[in-house]
């Protein structure tokens, strides 16, 4: 019988170079103390320390059967893993192993990972972790892949022999928790994708993914988005998901997200909300903006004046192309609508013409805007109704249309995507 003194002995040298194991197969395997006939319990979970690039096993949990508490065995006491049993060394001292002390960054496979949802970045779909593929080599064990296929599900229930199709393994490198706190927090959300990656997905895909998630996970994922992305994603989600997400939002977060939206977008979102939530959201907005949004909400016949935004660029006619471009660069980040430069006569702000960004870039540096501009410009009257605006956009196919009053004063711009949605 091997003595307790052999605790720090190297793992059995006769073990193969490396071994691929499925967690589902390890689950419930006999755990024996050094000899095959000395069974002390069954494996119930594996504990890993999250580390780059791969998490490493730090211990196992075993159960002793009915009524007895499960016990944690540190990884350095685990000698080898065979198909019939897992062999461990007896406790260093006394009858029992030292009690389990949870440490930050540790996860329990069964508890925290199996059955959790992850966002598959390739398929852009929500998948369920059915199994985990482990790589064992020289006494160490790491998480190599997660299996999201039906096979993993079958293995979990002991029907692995039924599987016909190939596994769908996702490398752990692409499966990372949103944050460490999320996995080990009390609510045990382990939505798996990184903060950097989440911003690379188009908001339409994020919205689809959000719709598939359930409450907590939805909240976790949504809170990982920055406000601009959050606003876009929220607008792209279907009404039911919109209602759920808004219901879970903190007022401050909601205010930040709303301020990323135009009044037309706000009205779009709010019209999907129950009345009480709608009132709460409107209360978060600055008074003037709330009024505009409220006006849009209460009518089927929104006017151009209410739908327009002021994120346009206007310049006087006598400046040169070079000057115009540098002004554009200076203002660019505040102004969404830089496709066209509107040429106006100050101080009345009368719209004279419009310069396409392409014209401006290609133009001779000394040419003035008056030389470059197309005139007379196509514009929408501020009193036009939404249906008329749809006709106008359909007719001209411009991405932006300037809005003017009856005396040709430039008031704002309308965006194609907001009118034609």
């Amino acid at each position, binding site marked *: 019988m091997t003595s307790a003194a052999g605790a720090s002995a190297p793992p059995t040298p006769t073990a193969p170079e490396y071994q691929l194991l499925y967690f589902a197969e390890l689950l419930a395997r006999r755990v024996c103390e050094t000899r095959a006939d000395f069974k002390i319990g069954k494996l119930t979970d594996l504990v890993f320390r999250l580390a780059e690039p791969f998490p490493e096993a730090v211990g196992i949990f075993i159960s002793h059967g009915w009524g007895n508490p499960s016990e944690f065995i540190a990884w350095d006491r685990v000698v080898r893993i065979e198909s019939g049993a897992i062999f461990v060394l007896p406790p260093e001292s006394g009858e029992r192993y030292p009690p389990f002390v949870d440490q930050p960054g540790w996860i329990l496979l069964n508890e925290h990972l199996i059955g959790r949802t992850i966002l598959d970045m390739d398929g852009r779909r929500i998948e369920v972790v059915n199994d985990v593929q482990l790589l064992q080599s020289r006494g160490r064990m790491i998480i190599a892949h997660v299996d999201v296929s039906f096979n993993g599900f079958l293995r979990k229930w002991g029907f692995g022999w039924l599987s016909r199709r190939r596994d769908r393994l996702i490398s752990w490198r692409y499966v990372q928790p949103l944050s460490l706190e999320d996995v080990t927090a009390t609510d045990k959300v382990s939505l798996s994708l990184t903060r950097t990656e989440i911003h690379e997905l188009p908001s339409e895909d994020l919205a689809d993914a959000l*719709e598939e998630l359930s409450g907590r996970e939805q909240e976790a994922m949504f809170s990982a988005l920055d406000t601009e992305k959050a606003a876009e994603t929220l607008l792209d989600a279907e009404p039911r998901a919109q209602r759920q997400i808004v219901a879970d939002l903190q007022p401050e977060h909601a205010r930040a997200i709303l301020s990323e939206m135009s009044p037309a977008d706000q009205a779009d979102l709010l019209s999907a909300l129950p009345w009480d939530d709608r009132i709460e959201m409107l209360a978060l907005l600055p008074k003037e903006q709330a009024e505009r949004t409220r006006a849009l909400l209460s009518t089927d016949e929104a006017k151009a004046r209410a739908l327009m935004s002021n994120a346009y660029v206007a310049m006087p006619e006598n400046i040169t192309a070079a000057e115009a471009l540098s002004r554009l660069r200076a203002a660019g980040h505040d102004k969404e609508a830089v496709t066209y430069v509107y040429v106006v006569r100050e101080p009345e702000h009368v719209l004279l013409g419009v310069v396409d960004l392409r014209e401006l870039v290609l133009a001779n540096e000394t040419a003035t805007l008056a030389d470059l501009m197309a005139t007379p410009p196509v514009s929408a009257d501020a009193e036009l109704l939404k249906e008329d605006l749809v006709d106008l956009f359909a007719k001209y196919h411009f991405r932006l249309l300037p809005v003017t009053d009856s005396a040709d004063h430039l008031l704002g711009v309308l965006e194609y995507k907001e009118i034609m949605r």
Partner: protein
Amino acid sequence: MYWISKLIHQLSRLKRRWMVLLAVLGPGIITMVADNDAGGISTYAQTGAKTGFNMLWAFIILVPMAYFVQEMTVRLGAVTKRGHAEAIFDGFGPVWGWFSVFDLALINWLTLVTEYIGMTQAALLFHIPAWITFLGVTALLMAIVITGRYWTFEKLTLVFCIFNLVYIPAAIWAMKTGNVGAGWNAVGRGFYAPHFSFTATFGPAALITLVMANIGTTITPWQIFFQQSAVVDKGMDIKDIKFGKIDTMAGALMTCIVAAFIIIATAAVFYYNPSGPISVESAAETAAKMPEVMPNQNWGVWAKGLFAIGLFDAGLLGALCISLSTSWALGEVFGWAHSLNKSVREAPWFYVAYLLMLLSSGVVSLVASTRVQDSITIFVQVVAVTLLPAALVFLILLLNDKPLMGEHVNTRAQNLANWSITIFVIAVSTVFGVSVLFPKLFGSA
């Protein structure tokens, strides 16, 4: 010339509002017309055959009754964006929530059986075997909802609603038989000067039962759940409420007009039959007897065809809306995706529940004996008695919840109308339920 351009502007504005109204029309009409389901047609046919035109006045009361109740569901759905089951859960807790949903699922399933029976009987008149009807109808009902768009479902269903109008020509032909001496004047008198003549087989007790049956078939629990869910699924907003009310009113008028014409048709040929009144017990029987009571030319054969088509269509609409209302309610309480705007992939349980309801009730309708079918019909009415009062009271309480409804909370006038309707319906349906369970109680005078 200014007035011309102004006129054109006004006209285009009018046209636009008209288009918006047309776009919003749907849930109200469908709910109301589907309410004339297979059981409803039978009730109206019996009413006509037993009382002639003398019950027509009831519809002057039934139109506002149906309108006021259903109009509340429009406001509740548009303001809260929640279905009725969800609203009850949120407002009154899980006990009442589960009670309502369980009751609804049960009563809907039983009613579905009667719809299938109606459809197979109607198809039998065209010599189509029952099992073919069952398979065909189930496939059709699945096809209507499976497109993944609420819009398609609504427009298809509105087409089926139009078929409900076949009873109008049937009534006109029935009047042409000349059985009724005073002609349409006699019909008119039915609205303001009813005159009942009781016989040994048809006493005051039977009359009261008939009145109750007519009310019971006009206001049903599933209608409340269905219209609210449809309003939510359609994405109607607060600003659409005014059109939703027009929609509901149009539906209430249409359903009652059709019901009145059914009564006129059956009354003219059965009650005012030259050789004495002929009794009928069901819609299928009514259709089958048409050739016999309308011997002139081919009217009778045509009337039979129209009645059969009408009955089939009524069963189809009823089955569609009833199983949908169950699916919506179950989806709301179990948190499944539940929208006709979702594909089968996206909302599997919603469609599975829908299909299972249809298949199970359809199979039961095929294998059940007449005895079982009769007891189902009775049981439906008894369960309705337990659910309808609760549903109405919940509805009114929700509509009076100021934090929930905001400015669309019930006005005093609406409350007055709705509480009177509710108390009246509770009283009537309770008496009716008891009388169905214990027929001897009221005696047969």
